[in-house]
């Protein structure tokens, strides 16, 4: 690894210069602004300037009834909109004490996991594209397209699904959906060989990722990192296991972890997670119970006064909805704990000492969504 120079070693006027990476840059996944202090091509200090896509979702929530916040929830993390949407519904259900039918919970699991696979595929392939390989990105896109088509058949939308409703889901899934999902699972399992040959085994990819951007366990804990980024650092923590929501307690799956904490570990964790998600989908479809898909809830709900915190695992980490209700139809306060927010902040700790090219790799491997950070 490169030896990190401290500011004291360098005559500032001569050697350091600042580079604005973003807000308009091909590899910042949206509008994120890195203010880098560089020594040659080595980053000495990195500061992330965020807020370019701040839309004030939390303030919006205070100005609309609970139902009207459905579309907002998916627009925070547009890559795992289904998970955010479902999570919001579950948070409000927890607040109101609504019991969701089992079939609806299973459908939520199936759609959320499909969404997670789609998000991970994009995350992994975007990371590979940041390193410079464009073709694997489009192969991943090809797989992701099947999921989007599949979800479109039941939700009618491709990114901002808006599918979950308080007390259940909007549309039931049928046999054709299950058959296409099974076909996708079979196809996806075969595709792992392609990804391993084309990307994981590639010597350039290995050289670019192994030992780059190491997040140690302690740093991860200190900075509140969650999700695949945390599991890549060797911490076995997944909300789906630790606090099973929906019906994750019914399924048999593993939490893949890697000890190394570098870009490669995070990449491998994501690929392994896709595999586990496929397992969950398969189990859920095999044991799909019959019954109603929506509990009998009023058209507009009025939760009792009080507060609740609901945590769930999105494709990027542990998301939390903290809702304070004052007993009216409008939330008094709605706070979203965005995993990308903390995951991004850790970059200011680990980037110094790396090249600009590594910054792109690390940023890709942490896989943040900017609208989720900015909310």
């Amino acid at each position, binding site marked *: 690894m490169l030896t990190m120079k401290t500011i004291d070693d360098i005559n500032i006027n001569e050697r350091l*210069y600042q*580079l604005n990476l973003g807000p308009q*840059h*091909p*590899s910042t996944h949206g509008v994120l602004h890195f203010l880098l202090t560089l020594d040659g*091509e080595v980053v000495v200090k990195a500061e992330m300037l965020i807020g370019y896509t701040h839309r004030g979702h939390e303030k919006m929530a205070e100005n609309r009834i609970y139902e009207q916040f459905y579309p907002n929830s998916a627009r925070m993390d547009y890559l795992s909109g289904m998970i955010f949407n479902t999570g919001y519904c579950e948070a409000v259900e927890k607040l109101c004490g609504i019991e969701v039918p089992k079939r609806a919970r299973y459908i939520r699991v199936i759609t959320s996991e499909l969404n997670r696979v789609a998000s991970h595929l994009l995350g992994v392939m975007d990371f*590979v*594209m*940041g*390193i*410079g*390989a*464009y*073709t694997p990105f*489009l*192969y991943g896109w*090809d797989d992701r397209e099947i999921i989007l088509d599949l979800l479109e058949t039941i939700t009618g939308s491709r990114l901002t699904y808006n599918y979950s409703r308080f007390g259940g889901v909007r549309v039931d899934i049928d046999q054709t959906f299950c058959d296409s999902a099974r076909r996708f699972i079979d196809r996806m399992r075969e595709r792992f060989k392609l990804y391993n040959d*084309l*990307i994981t085994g*590639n010597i*350039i*990819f290995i*050289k*670019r990722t192994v030992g780059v951007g190491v997040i140690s366990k302690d740093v991860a804990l200190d900075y509140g990192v969650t999700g695949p980024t945390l599991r890549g650092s060797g911490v076995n923590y997944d909300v789906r296991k630790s606090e099973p929501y929906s019906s994750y307690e019914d399924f048999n799956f593993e939490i893949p972890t890697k000890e190394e904490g570098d870009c490669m570990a995070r990449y491998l964790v994501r690929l392994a997670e896709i595999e586990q998600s496929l397992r969950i989908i398969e189990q859920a479809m095999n044991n799909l119970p019959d019954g109603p898909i929506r509990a009998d809830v009023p058209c507009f709900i009025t939760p009792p006064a009080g507060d609740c915190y609901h945590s769930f695992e999105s494709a990027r980490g542990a998301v939390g909805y903290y809702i304070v209700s004052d007993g009216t139809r409008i939330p008094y306060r709605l706070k979203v704990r965005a995993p990308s927010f903390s995951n991004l902040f850790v970059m200011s700790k680990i980037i110094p000492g790396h*090249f*600009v*090219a*590594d*910054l*792109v790799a690390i940023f890709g491997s942490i896989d943040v969504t900017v609208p989720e950070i900015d909310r």
Partner: protein
Amino acid sequence: MNMTQLPIIKDIYGFLGPDLLVGVVGLLLVLIFVPLNSAFLVWVERKVAGHIQLRPGPMEVGPHGILQSLIDAVKLMCKEMITPDLADKPLFWMAPCIVVIPAIVCFVVIPFSPVMQIRELNVGILLIFAFSSISGLSIMMGGWASNNKYSLIGAVRAVAQSIAYEIPLLLSTMSVIIMSNSFKMSQIVSDQSTVWNFILQPVAAIIFIICSTAETNRAPFDLVEAESELVSGFHTEYTGMRDALFFMAEYTAMFIASSMAVVLFFGGWHGPFFSGIVWFVLKAYFLVFVTVWIRWTFPRLRFDQLMNFAWKVLIPISLLNLLVTAIVIKVL
């Protein structure tokens, strides 16, 4: 009055002989060939990339979109050429002009067939090396003059990269030159009438192809442009036809590098059934296809790895190869 009767013209004609005619006609042909060739190669690149990525590539203009690059060229000519306010204007203007010089000059010595060569030089190979280094200069000029940090980083990378990769490039060429005892390109080609140098010198051939990919700044060595890091590298600030000139130079350099590889290792114009030029162009385009294919397969190296690869892998191996070649030739 007959112009040729003038003493000065007579002197020039006497000095140049029939070469003048060949020179003028050849230059015209090169001037026509270079833009058309690069337009064709852009189309090839987009088509190959498309099919590798399971999509058809350009399809709209002409059959299978073959006229797409010509239309794009027309569009680029109509575009405004923006010069940044803080740019070094003369240098900024000169860089794209200089970058096409090696693209044109190098064609002078390439033997497309036994008869199709504009000028036979005793040091043809050296001329190509000498002139292709100019492209590094123009990249440096463009990157510096843009007054953009991304461009500057790209330019600095370009210089370091071209220095590092010229050494193994020359060393691998040297082993061929030792074998045919000549810097003359036609001599090297005619020496391969029975066995290609690729069979005799496989290591040198592979190193040559790798280094020429790096010299022409193609992926996986395209750190000079490195889209995901440096936006567009040295030509970030260039627009319109100036940008197109950089592209033209890049694709022509690709073609020249492939032609060099054909001359040095793949038997030049030699081949059954067809005439020499057909074989030569086929081989050159196949090598171009290989570089395009490589580009759309691999990730990009990091800068220190690029340097390590040149200094720790390519240079030792090519030196070793040269040494072995020299010993074998001496012994035989």
